[in-house]
């Protein structure tokens, strides 16, 4: 069966195994040389690609939910969407959620995902109380920050390369309403959006949409979108009707002009300097989830999502240099996203470091591959790094230069028998054993 990531590039012919019990997992580990656990396949590149994948679709059970303390325990295959349907009506919310709810808990841990509150709340793993991990030999360990700490630090953000995450227990966050007060602040250039991020650091959620096509004075013009939970109101998580793109959008419609027009409309739809509205949390956190397979927007060839972070030291200058290259290429995308990160955690491969992260899509093509190579070298030079969950193209050298703890990661994998047992197309490309 052909499988791929959300970017639909690259694809791989894989055997997809669907365990229903822990026993099935053990058997699959025994009967296959090299495997990789996989959730909903929502990482963008090739990090969930492998010739044999153990997909957790049927390990999707809740185990315990303490409504009074907000501690939730569930199997790795449960999606954030399912969780929200359960917890929001009871007055709880995910401590950290990425921009899609169609991801599994196992995937959230393996990617150590971040959200719009990273600057204050850190990554998902920072809210984990414990997780159950099946090692390559079938042994199950209960792992936490202070129980097998080395394995915890390798597994969170470890891209599924330490074992199969079976279940996890984490602390939810209380909410009084399922509505979000959204404030949109319009800024005219990159320097201004940086200032706005700084002065709104106390805002619970913040993210900026940034125009990656406009040159000159207005380079980096953005909309900063802040969010706070409403303090009182209804608690509901509606089953939104999703619209599906039934076919790939033909090449013709996705070109420099259409994207530029979209960007201009998106930017100018906010007239005033600040606009405040109250919206349901689905719309604030998961704007793209209402379009079933928006990845088809980029046509058959698929796309590469590129997300990097630059350390604070690189400053707005560094970001400006990179943005100039992107704008100059004219290859920017519909939705590019800028976000301020808080401090890094101790996990070996977790992506966020204190600084600014930019994420954008590029339609797959020869030119984009060249462009990304160029961007990679700039990011590496400035002491930044690329998000493994989005990556499809990074070189081994860039990886080892930017994820400085990769050797410790490999040592822990060796210690717990993961080397030669768990691998992905990405891990091979990046020179992990």
């Amino acid at each position, binding site marked *: *069966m052909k499988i791929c990531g959300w970017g639909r590039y690259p694809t791989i012919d894989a055997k*997809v195994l*669907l365990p*229903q*019990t822990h*026993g099935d997992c053990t058997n699959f580990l025994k009967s296959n040389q090299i495997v990789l656990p996989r959730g909903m396949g929502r990482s963008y590149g090739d990090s969930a690609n492998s010739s044999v994948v153990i997909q957790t679709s*049927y390990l999707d*059970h*809740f*185990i*315990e*939910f303490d409504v009074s303390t907000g501690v939730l325990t569930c*199997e790795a295959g449960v999606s954030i969407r399912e969780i929200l349907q*359960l917890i929001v009506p009871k007055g709880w919310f995910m401590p950290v959620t990425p921009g899609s709810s169609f991801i599994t808990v196992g995937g959230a841990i393996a990617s150590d995902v971040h959200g719009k509150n990273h600057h204050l709340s850190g990554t998902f793993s920072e809210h984990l109380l414990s997780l159950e991990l099946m090692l390559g030999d079938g042994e199950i360990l209960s792992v936490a920050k202070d129980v097998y700490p080395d394995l915890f630090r390798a597994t969170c953000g470890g891209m599924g390369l330490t074992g199969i995450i079976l279940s996890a227990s984490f602390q939810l966050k209380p909410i009084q309403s399922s509505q979000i007060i959204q404030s949109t602040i319009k800024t005219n250039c990159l320097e201004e959006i940086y200032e706005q991020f700084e002065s709104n650091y106390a805002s619970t959620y913040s993210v900026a949409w940034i125009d990656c096509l406009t040159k000159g004075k207005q380079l980096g013009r953005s909309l900063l979108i802040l969010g706070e939970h409403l303090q009182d109101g209804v608690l509901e998580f509606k089953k939104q009707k999703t619209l599906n793109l039934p076919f790939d959008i033909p090449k013709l419609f996705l070109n420099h002009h259409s994207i530029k027009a979209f960007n201009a409309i998106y930017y100018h739809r906010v007239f005033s300097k600040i606009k405040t509205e109250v919206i349901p949390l689905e719309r604030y956190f998961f704007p793209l989830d209402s379009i079933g397979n928006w990845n088809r927007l980029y046509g058959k060839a698929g796309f590469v999502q590129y997300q990097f972070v630059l350390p604070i030291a690189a400053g707005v200058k560094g970001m400006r240099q990179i943005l100039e290259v992107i704008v100059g290429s004219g290859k920017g995308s519909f939705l590019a996203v800028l976000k301020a990160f808080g401090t890094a955690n101790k996990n070996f491969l977790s992506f966020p470091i204190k600084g600014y992260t930019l994420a954008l899509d590029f339609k797959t093509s020869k030119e984009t591959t060249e462009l990304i190579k160029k961007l990679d070298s700039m990011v590496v030079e400035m002491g930044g790094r690329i998000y493994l969950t989005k990556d499809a193209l990074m070189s081994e050298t860039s990886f080892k230069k930017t994820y400085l703890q990769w050797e410790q990661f490999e040592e822990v994998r060796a210690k717990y028998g993961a080397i030669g047992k768990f691998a992905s197309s990405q891990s091979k490309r990046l020179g992990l054993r």
Partner: protein
Amino acid sequence: MKKILIIGATSAIAEATARIWAQRGDELFLVARNQERLNVITEDLKVRGSSGVHSYCMDANNFEEHLPMINTAYDVLCNIDIVLIAHGTLSNQKECEHSVELTMQEIKTNTLSVIALLTDLANRFEAKGSGTITVISSVAGDRGRASNYVYGSAKAMVTAFASGLRQRLHKSNVTVITIKPGFVNTPMTAEFKNGLLLVKPATVAAKIVKAIDEKKSEVYVPAFWWTVMAVIKTIPNKMFKSLNL
């Protein structure tokens, strides 16, 4: 709040259906062969909001276990509003062709055990004069085809039996529903690669719950299978026998 007995509760379709009922707060009595999986599903359904989940480990092919199971279900639930019979195996057609034993086994699992259960349950529902009996058959039962006629003929009898039962129990205000799924994406069908025709267990589950709420009789899931099977049924044998279906 409904009281519901689910036989074959670990099947993907039954589990997805149970999740909808649990969310509604219904009380569930689950029957399946695998105790480990029953335990996992029981806890899950409790978290999802079921007002009570009970489990019972039984192999439907041991007919002598049926009566104690049904008695226990009535003892525990006090009353049963809905029964969902969802157990079954997808026969390996090629292997069946070379094994009488295997073929008989498949018929036993997919037909005889279902009929044994239906016979007893029908009388209890008839006596009470209310409730819904739902059984999962298959589009494969509409016409035997070379590619899976063992499974198909087994389901054909389930369909015919349920049809008769529906007429009989109509007088007693009992609804009998036959669900006929096409290809469903479950571990049972993991080998099929027919991506376009596959539907999710959750989709079938939603249709089952709706069919029960609306007291339907026969339901094809998705609905287009009604048309497909109507066409297949009308092909003359002269032509049909040379088709590769």
